[in-house]
Structures are given as C-alpha cells and as structure tokens.
C-alpha cells in the first residue's frame, strides 16, 4: 500500500463527502413534487430514491473516463487540485442547501475543478470553449425545454380531466408520479454516482495504485453508491421544500407532468450526448407546470433567487477551489491538512446554523420559504 499517500486518502474521503452532498442536494429533483402532492410520504419517498440511487450506481458500467469531461486539461490535474476542487464543490453545496436553493451539484464540481486547475496549472489548463459548450449552453437550454414541455403537458392534462371525477383524477396522477419520480432517481444514480467513481479511480491511477485504464475496484463502486444513496435518504429537506412548495403550489397532475418532462429531457439529452444538470431540468419543469395550470401562483421571487444561485454556482465554487488549490500548492501536506480542517469546520458551522430552523420530514410541507431563523412569536431580546 505504498501508493496510498495521505493526499490520496484525503481525496477519497472528500470525494465521498461530495457524493454524499450530491445525493443530499438532488433528492429534491426526483421527489420534491411527489412529497408536495402527497403521492408519497416524505420518508418513503427518500427511501425509494436512496435505494434507486444505489441500484443506479451499481448498474452503471460506463464510469467517467475523465474527471471533468474535457472542461479542464486532465493531464495537468494533480490529486491536490482534485482535492481543492472537491472542497469548493462540497462547501458550495452545503451553503445552497442551508438557504434552501436548488443549485447544480455538477456545476459546483466543475467550478471547483476549474478554480483549482486555474490556480494550480495556469489558465491554459482550463478549456473555456468546452465550458461554454458543456456547461453554459445546456444550462440555458435544458430548463427552458423542460419548462415548455411541462407547461404544455400540464395545460392539456387539466383540459382533458376537468369534467372527470376529482378523486379518480388525483389518485391516478399520484400513482403515475411514483413511477416517473422513480425513473428520475434511477437515472440520477447511474449518472451522478459514476462521477465520484471516476474521480476516485483517476486519483488512484495517478497515484500508481491502479494500472492505467483500470476500472473502478468494487469497493469504490460500493462506497460511491452508498454515499450518494445515504445522502439521498437523509434528504435535503430544505431544498425539497423550495422545489415542492416554494416555486409554486403543486397538484398531482402538475407533479406528474413535471416529472415526466424531467425524465424525458434527462434521458433524451443523455442519449444524444448532452451533459446537463438534473437540478436545472427539474426546476424548469416545476416552473412550467406552475404556469400550465390556470390561476396557479408562481413565486417569481424564489425563482429569481434560484436562477441567481445557478449563475453564481460555478464562479463561487471556482473561487473556493482556487483558494484551496493555492494553499495546497504552497503548503504541501500541511496545507492539505489545513484546507481539510478549515473545510470541515465551515461545513460543521453550516450544519450548526441549519439547526436553528431545521427542516425535516415532519415539517417539509408546512411552509414554502426556508428561513435561517425560526419565526417564533416570542423573541428573546438579545440582539445577535
């Protein structure tokens, strides 16, 4: 085990931490609307989603061959940069979770890597044309396409079923939602868990612990699958609330239309080789479903904040990744330990702040805003 240095161990642990936040962040994409309409009980929803994510992780054989899909020059990437990039991604995922904003885990990972490589290897290590092609264009196009599909589908679903018995309609669409939400979860497991597997495998290869062109060892597949499944099961309830309740009040026909649209957009894009963010597709679908029902209220304030978070995700993660990379570059092993400790401390701080106003399976549907402070009628008069 000479090849397993401290840095490699730290990278693997951080990669699994990222995988966990990825599952945690993205449960909402598949399950938020099913939870909001009561198609599935909150705990059942995250359990199904978690299991399907693990299943998806094991099914996927096409493990990522590149760390970034060509966005950065993989030959210049060192384990130190991967570590710094992952720290940026994890911290940004936790911060957006705290304020209940659905932002793309893939963009956070790309951003972190771009920042780390830029600082570690110079700007020639970053392929900016690929960034536009693989990140920017799908980021603009996919929510619009998903939203348009969900809008038309929702409108037609309501037109067709207005005269039918209401409880047959509600019950029918709820059952349909379970199927469509499950498909989103399965697709998520095959896509996102393999990103982490790719990162760990490539790190092991670069450290010499695995031969070139080696596939991921079973323990890598198992741990990546379990990390994302566990994250999904614990559920980012704050984001689930925003997506299920915050953007618009979802009824079961809308939920079905939104999830069908998300599934279709994700599968057609993957089939045609487009990389896209599940989060942005799902959010676009929900907004479209909100617009497709007459008199449904879309809360544009929340939607605007969400879009702002999308714009900031990549640069923000890049900034953290860049700063971490510079510490790792100049500080060596000591620098790595410092970044790991500071990162863990910030993460713990975010979790501590979230405890002030926790959102859980019990209260996820009770409100549509995620506030940082509990809004209690009795306020203790100590100015913070």
């Amino acid at each position, binding site marked *: 085990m000479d090849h397993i240095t401290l840095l490699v161990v730290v990278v693997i642990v951080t990669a699994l931490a990222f995988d966990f936040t990825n599952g945690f962040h993205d449960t909402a994409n598949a399950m938020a609307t099913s939870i909001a309409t009561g198609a599935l009980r909150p705990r059942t929803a995250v359990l199904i989603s978690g299991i399907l994510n693990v299943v*998806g992780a094991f*099914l*996927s*054989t*096409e493990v990522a061959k590149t760390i970034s899909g060509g966005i950065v020059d993989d030959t210049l990437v060192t384990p130190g940069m991967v570590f710094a990039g992952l720290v940026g991604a994890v911290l940004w995922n936790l911060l957006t979770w705290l304020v209940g904003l659905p932002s793309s885990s893939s963009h956070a990972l790309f951003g972190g890597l771009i920042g780390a490589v830029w600082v570690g290897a110079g700007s020639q290590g970053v392929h900016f*044309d690929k960034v*536009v*092609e693989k990140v920017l*264009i799908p980021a603009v*196009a996919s929510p619009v*396409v*998903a939203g*348009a*599909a*969900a809008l*038309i*589908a*929702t409108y*037609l*679903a309501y037109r*067709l*079923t207005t005269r*039918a*018995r209401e409880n*047959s*309609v509600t019950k*029918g*669409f709820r059952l*349909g939602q379970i*199927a469509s939400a499950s*498909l989103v979860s*399965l*697709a998520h497991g*095959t896509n996102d868990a393999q990103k982490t597997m790719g990162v760990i495998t490539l790190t092991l290869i670069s450290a010499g612990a695995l031969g070139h062109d080696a596939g991921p060892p079973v323990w890598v597949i198992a741990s990546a699958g379990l990390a994302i499944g566990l994250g999904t099961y614990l559920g980012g309830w704050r984001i689930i609330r925003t997506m299920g309740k915050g953007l618009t009040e979802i009824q079961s*026909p809308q939920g*079905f*239309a939104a999830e*069908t*649209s998300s*599934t*279709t*957009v994700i*599968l*057609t*894009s*993957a*089939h*045609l*080789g*487009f990389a896209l963010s599940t989060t942005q597709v799902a959010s676009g679908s929900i907004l479209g479903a909100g617009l497709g029902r007459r008199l449904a209220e879309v809360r544009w304030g929340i939607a605007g904040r969400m879009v702002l978070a999308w714009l900031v995700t990549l640069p923000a993660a890049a900034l953290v990744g860049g700063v971490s990379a510079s510490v790792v570059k100049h500080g060596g092993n000591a620098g790595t330990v410092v970044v790991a400790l500071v990162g863990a401390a910030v993460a713990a701080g975010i979790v501590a702040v979230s405890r002030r106003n926790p959102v859980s399976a019990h209260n996820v549907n009770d409100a549509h805003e995620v506030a940082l402070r509990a809004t209690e009628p009795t306020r203790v008069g100590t100015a913070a």
Partner: protein
Amino acid sequence: MSIDWTALGQVTAVSIGVTVAVVVVFALGILGLARFEGAREGNGGTSAVGLAQAGLCFLACEAVVAHGICLIVPQFH
C-alpha cells in the same frame, strides 16, 4: 465555439413530443378509470369501455417507462 443546433433541436422536439404524448395518454387512461369508477358507484354497473380505455392507455405508458429503463440501464443497450 460551435453550437450544435441540430442536437439541441432534436432534444427539444423529442422532449416536448414525448412528454406531451405520455401525459395526454395517461390523462385519457385516468378518464377511462374515472368513467369506470363513476359507473360502479353510480348504478352499481360497470363501464367496459372505460375499463378498456384505461387498460390500453396505462399499458402504452408502461411501454414508455420500460423503454426509459432500457435507456437508463447500460446493460440493456
């Protein structure tokens, strides 16, 4: 930088087409089911047409789901 408009157009057309088709067929299935359940509760009879409509529509949706699973699972490619 080049934008692959053809692929983008394909994704748009297929996504909207399939989504709308699935939701409309599913809604028709629900209408059939509603008719069947309405008849059963209304006069204790059954609506064979409603049941057949529901069955056919849900079967069509299941076929689409099966195709979706095939697309997701690499072993089926």
